[in-house]
């Protein structure tokens, strides 16, 4: 069978079926459903503590039509390694996928993830990034963006939302030099299909990073989930790229950079943000944009920040973004 390239090539067979308990308009459910369609029936799923456990695997039922395992929060890398080792021992082979949230990847699961990546285990690790601990009631994580409101980065008189920028997880992954790593968006359909298909067919440690808008956590309208994911790419909040056998490339480049306010205004978690903070976020985004897409075309929204064009990422050489 030739490789899947577009939505039309995708199998119609659902491996993650209807009847789950996710909120209406859940971005994570969109991502998981399509990843499972592409991976197919010959897959073993591991999920650490996250929304995905709660919505899809309330004992005695499950929404996955594949074997499914759940243990603790911090060990996605270790458990998927173990499942794969058991399969090797028994002479079986199937795609072993770990579907972890951003808390279970950026923060709590980082050591097991790093271990599995360093050993180049034959597993697929998917980070479903909704930028916070949404399952337990919207706490901040290493993935929460600058300025966002969460219950642990409240909006008060002295501090308004999170003060730190989002952790660059992909740089950490890239430092392990995995065979394949890519960032995905649920709004860029064909790009999504190609990357998951590529990750499925490779051997060794593969990492996929999906942005999954969260309706209650981001205080957004359920119908706008995919639109928010699209605007994240158009404003530079999210970049679509892949690291394939050590060479990096961006897989989609927006025509012009939209101002970040287009993205912020659809989400209640940024409602409090004032001009100073928006400018600070925009400046950080401009530096990120020029790093990813090159600085030969000047972006109008970045014209006020004179120095950002010269800012170079400290890990630029390792990331192979030249």
């Amino acid at each position, binding site marked *: 069978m030739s490789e899947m390239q577009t939505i039309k090539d995708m199998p119609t067979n659902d491996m993650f079926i209807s009847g789950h308990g996710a909120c209406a308009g859940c971005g994570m459910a969109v991502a998981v459903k399509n990843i499972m369609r592409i991976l197919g029936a010959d897959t073993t799923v591991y999920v650490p503590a996250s929304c995905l456990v709660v919505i899809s695997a*309330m004992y005695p039922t499950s929404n996955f039509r594949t074997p499914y395992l759940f243990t603790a929060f911090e060990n996605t890398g270790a458990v998927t390694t173990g499942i794969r080792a058991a399969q090797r021992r028994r002479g079986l082979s199937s795609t072993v996928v770990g579907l972890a949230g951003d808390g279970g990847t950026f923060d709590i699961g980082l050591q097991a993830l790093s271990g599995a990546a360093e050993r180049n285990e034959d597993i697929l690790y998917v980070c479903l990034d909704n930028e916070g601990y949404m399952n337990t009631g919207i706490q901040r994580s290493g993935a929460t963006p600058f300025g966002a409101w969460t219950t642990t980065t409240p909006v008060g008189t002295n501090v308004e939302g999170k003060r730190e920028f989002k952790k660059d997880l992909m740089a950490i992954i890239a430092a392990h030099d995995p065979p394949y790593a890519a960032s995905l968006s649920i709004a860029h359909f064909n790009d999504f299909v190609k990357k998951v298909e590529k990750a499925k067919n490779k051997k060794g440690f593969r990492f996929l990073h999906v942005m999954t808008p969260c309706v209650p956590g981001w205080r957004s309208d359920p119908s706008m989930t995919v639109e928010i994911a699209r605007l994240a790419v158009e404003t530079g909040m999210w970049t679509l790229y892949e690291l394939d056998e050590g060479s990096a490339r961006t897989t989609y480049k927006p025509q012009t950079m939209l101002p970040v306010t287009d993205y912020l205004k659809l989400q209640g978690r940024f409602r409090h943000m004032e001009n100073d903070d928006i400018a600070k976020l925009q400046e950080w985004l401009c530096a990120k944009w020029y790093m990813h897409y090159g600085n030969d075309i000047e972006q109008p929204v970045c014209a006020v920040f004179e120095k950002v064009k010269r800012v170079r990422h400290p890990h630029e050489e390792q990331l192979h973004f030249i």
Partner: protein
Amino acid sequence: MFEVRFHGRGGQGAVMAAQTLAEAAVIEGRHAQAFPYFGAERRGAPVMAFARIADRKISIKSQVYEPDLLVVLDESLLDIEPVARGLKPGGKAVINTRKLPTEIDLGMEVECATVPATSIAMEYLKAPIVNTAILGAVAMVCDLFSMGSMQQAIENRFGGKFGEAAARANAAAAAAAYSQTLRGRCKGNRPFVPRRVWLPDWRDIPIGNTLGEGVKDGVTVGPGGAKQNLTGSWRVQTPRYDKEKCVRCLRCWFSCPEGCIKREEDEYVRWDLNYCKGCGICAQVCPVKAIDMMKGGSR
């Protein structure tokens, strides 16, 4: 012991209503407890919350199975689950609806009060959060607490969390509901269909908790067993599909979180409304506006 069970949808404020009710009882000098149903329900899903009121210290900690008072925050729940299950024969019910009590069918004939809490909430709070309005009706029906202590409880609870203006608006909504409550007796024609559950003892649970596909006590278990969970009951708006306009891009099929959009052989799509939660993503992503969202959860 006076036991109350609230039925609502995630996001309507059923838990807050139970807590406020308990606080009103405490203001009256009684003992009270309030707690939500412990489950995995998300926004829009049918949820429950409970409250207990007594003159002595309450030691029981279980859910309320046989309530004296039933509070239904969303009328559409009457059609999708047997809300009156376990209600004591002499019990009472308070229902958020524009209908008369005699038009309501709970499956058992009890004293029933109705109140148009949604329109009251829209008037006073500019949002369909009906929990405080319905508490006004509860104060009307129950002689355990006065309207004064109910309003005091609302102001305490909402003032601390959302500020003084919100507290006053919520108390005003409760007062309006108090005066608009209609009392009567409801009908008892609806048959009860209890939901099947599998309640294994320890010998029935396989080693390692690993379940294969199968049926236990009428419940589908194991991989794929969740298909019996018909999430279409969450829906408050329904997609309408115009096949003439459809360009078969399959964006809606890809973007549906529920997987309830089915792809036909000819690449047109159809909806399995048993599972559609009515999020509206399909209408939003459609490039030719072949889908629009109609109000209401019906087909």
